[in-house]
């Protein structure tokens, strides 16, 4: 009888935490545009390093034709508000805030950068093609081996 009670309690505890997790987990807004070739899990872990690396290239060396830029992120990951205009970082629905609020990680990109895409700005961005990059490396290695 005791065992049965414990089992029932355990099952109840399991389901209640599962339901709790489901309801607390952030509801990540869908993005427009192509999918990340590296996958969403990769981006969730590495987006900050990619941005940091390429911000230094852009800022310090003037290399603007980078694969990953903040402007590119927010142009696809734009969330429209009730007035069908993109919401700024002040809204809890902003793509970046949804996860950053959940993880309690302070986000200070937008104290300087605009958090909504600029109107009329052409976004001819494309995601880096993982195979293309590999081919580029192989071609470079062949070139230098000569």
């Amino acid at each position, binding site marked *: 009888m005791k065992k049965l009670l414990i089992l029932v309690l355990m099952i109840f505890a399991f389901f209640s935490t599962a339901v709790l997790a489901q309801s607390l987990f952030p509801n990540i807004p869908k993005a427009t545009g192509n999918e990340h070739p*590296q996958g969403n899990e990769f981006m969730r872990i*590495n987006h900050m390093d990619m941005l940091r690396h390429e911000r230094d290239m852009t800022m310090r060396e003037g290399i603007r034709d980078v694969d990953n830029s903040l402007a590119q992120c927010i142009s696809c990951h734009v969330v429209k508000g009730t007035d069908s205009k993109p919401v700024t970082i002040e809204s809890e629905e902003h793509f970046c805030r949804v996860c950053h609020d959940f993880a309690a990680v302070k986000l200070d990109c937008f104290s300087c950068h605009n958090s909504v895409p600029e109107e009329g700005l052409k976004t001819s961005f494309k995601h880096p093609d993982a195979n293309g990059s590999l081919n*580029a*490396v192989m071609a470079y290695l062949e070139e230098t081996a000569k």
Partner: protein
Amino acid sequence: MTKEKGANIHRRDFLKSGAALASVTLASGVTLMAMGQGVAAGANPNVRWGLLIDANKCPSDCSACISACSNEHGWEDNGLPTDPQWIRKITLKDKNTGHENTLPLMCQHCEKPPCVDVCPTGASFKRADGIVLVDRHICIGCRYCMMACPFKARSFVHEKVKGQKTSSPRGKGTVEGCNMCVHKLDKGEGTTACVTACSATGNNAMIFGDLNDPSSDISLALTNYPSVELRDDLRLNLGVRYLNI
């Protein structure tokens, strides 16, 4: 928990993603720096961007360059002492003769910038093509550069900024100044907002170009006319020079 929502990463996936990061980062580094397959090469160390401003052609009542800069970069000078000024008009008066000249003054993009010397974090830096910039990612807002600058060319952002231009991010607690429209130059436009506006008024008081290219308009003008740099006693070798002052 659905796959889309979940952020639970298995060890195997994590390792795979790590491998992907290595290849992408390496690839972009190699593509951009070593191979240059039709991508922007970045700041060219053989170029030195400069400006030549003819004070005689600059009317005292014209402020086209200032409003163009303000529109391009999204800063606003409403007359408060703490408002930013990336470019401003100054009046020079000869005390003996009473002759007055007005001219626009902005960051002079020194070859040996004092702001870079004094910056404790390395945020103030000079790009390979001679443009002096503030890396606001690491600027701590100490304002040493503002004190070091002989031209009062930099401003501190005192208020929270909203609705910045995508091409010109700016924010509270950092120092900013003329960046020679570096976003335009990197796109290959080869001009700045102030120079475009000055030509549009018909005054043509400003010439922009590569000081290292002997055939550029600015180099030819510098060869043909006697230009001066401000505070030449400091021997900073400025990127901005003036005529007729």
